[in-house]
């Protein structure tokens, strides 16, 4: 690892002041599961300073806030996995973190790091977009809140500036009649990078029709997004395998219209359709 100055601020104002002072040469360190790999890659851009934010206590924890859930960014994947609040109000997020890396990675890796690193395969992002999450960014100039669906520009690039710290992730609890799921296609179960993933939410009324449908794919589109073409197929209908297949087909079509025909499309086109159907079937 190349040399750098190490800072471990104990409060948010101290961290913001440091980032403002050091500027673009600073790298924020949280769980380190991506940053420490990146910093040791041959030819990686050097950072003059590492700002380790893990000593800031306000950045940890999961809490209920009225009809919303607040997750602070340093919350680890393992903490999300064992959270009763997440299990009850956002079970698809629990499913997603259960498959991240390994026990070792889940003990260190954080949800904030997963978002800020912005890899196309980030497993927490499709569920959080399906949950209509917003993120709060803080810098010495002030704070702002951004819809997570508008936060990512392309893989590894977000709207966050180098001096901004992610301080909060907030989303509404799922309605009582909503069911959700996350399915991921990887090469093996542990330590696998998502090749494709789907987060789904459906809610069914007393009369048996779908009145809320959310589908977000991971590692498929150039950026994460809900797929309204497929969601609209579901709304007002009774769940059935035929209907779910049709929604899957709409996601495939949307994918091709976005990315064009690539070498991988022959594979992804049928597979994403099946994953969407499976994700919808898993919403029970």
């Amino acid at each position, binding site marked *: 690892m190349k040399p750098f100055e*190490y800072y471990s601020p104990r409060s948010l104002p101290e961290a913001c002041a440091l980032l403002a002072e050091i500027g673009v040469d600073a790298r924020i360190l949280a769980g380190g599961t991506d940053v*420490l*790999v990146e910093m040791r890659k041959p030819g990686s851009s050097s950072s003059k300073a590492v700002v380790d934010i893990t000593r800031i206590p306000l950045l940890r924890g999961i809490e209920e806030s009225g009809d919303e859930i607040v997750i602070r960014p340093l919350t680890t994947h393992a903490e999300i996995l064992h959270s009763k609040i997440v299990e009850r109000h956002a079970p698809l997020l629990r499913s997603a973190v259960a498959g991240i890396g390994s026990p070792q990675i889940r003990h*260190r890796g954080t949800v904030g790091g997963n978002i800020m690193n912005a890899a196309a395969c980030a497993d927490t992002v499709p569920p959080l977009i399906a949950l209509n999450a917003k993120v709060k960014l803080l810098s010495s100039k002030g704070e702002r809140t951004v819809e997570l669906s508008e936060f990512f520009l392309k893989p590894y690039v977000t709207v966050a500036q180098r001096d901004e710290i992610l301080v909060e992730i907030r989303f509404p609890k799922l309605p009582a009649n909503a069911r959700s799921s996350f399915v991921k296609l990887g090469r093996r179960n542990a330590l696998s990078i998502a090749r494709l993933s789907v987060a789904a939410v459906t809610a069914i009324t007393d009369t048996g029709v779908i009145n809320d449908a959310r589908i977000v794919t991971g590692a498929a589109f150039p950026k994460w997004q809900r797929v309204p073409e497929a969601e609209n197929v579901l709304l007002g209908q009774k769940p059935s395998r035929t209907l779910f297949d049709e929604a899957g087909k709409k996601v495939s079509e949307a994918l091709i219209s976005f990315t064009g025909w690539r070498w991988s499309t022959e594979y992804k086109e049928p597979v994403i359709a099946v994953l969407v159907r499976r994700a919808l079937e898993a919403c029970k």
Partner: protein
Amino acid sequence: MKSVFIRTTINGKTREHDVRPNMTLLDFLRDELGLTGTKRGCEVGECGACTVLMNGQAVNSCLVLVPQIDGQDILTVEGLAEGERLHPLQESFLDHDAVHCGFCTPGMLMSGKELLEHTPNPTEEETRTAISGNLCRCSGYQQIVDAIRETKAAGIEKSK
């Protein structure tokens, strides 16, 4: 580059060091403390050979920056045995021939140790999940799983 002062507990012993910050916990254990039981494998968090316990949780020491262990409690494979007496988990690995080339063994032991701390009677599936971040290239997983699962009896007997 300024050095960073850390106070940490490693295998039950409190230590104070001035460290270069651009070092991982793995580098520190092996190169500074000579604790070479923790193995250097992939160095990207995929093989688990460098697994140690940090505050009782299994972590890849290649993915912890050394200043981050300030104030934390670290247990490495060297901390398992008490003097000449092996830890029951180590005894169980011997009894089950769970060691082939041995390179994954320290990491497997530490992942197994964490599992048994909170799940004294693990199922096969729980055991396999617990070691899912540890690769064995000799492919002796079954013996390792058996060794971890059958440790609990030994462990409970000894603690009585």
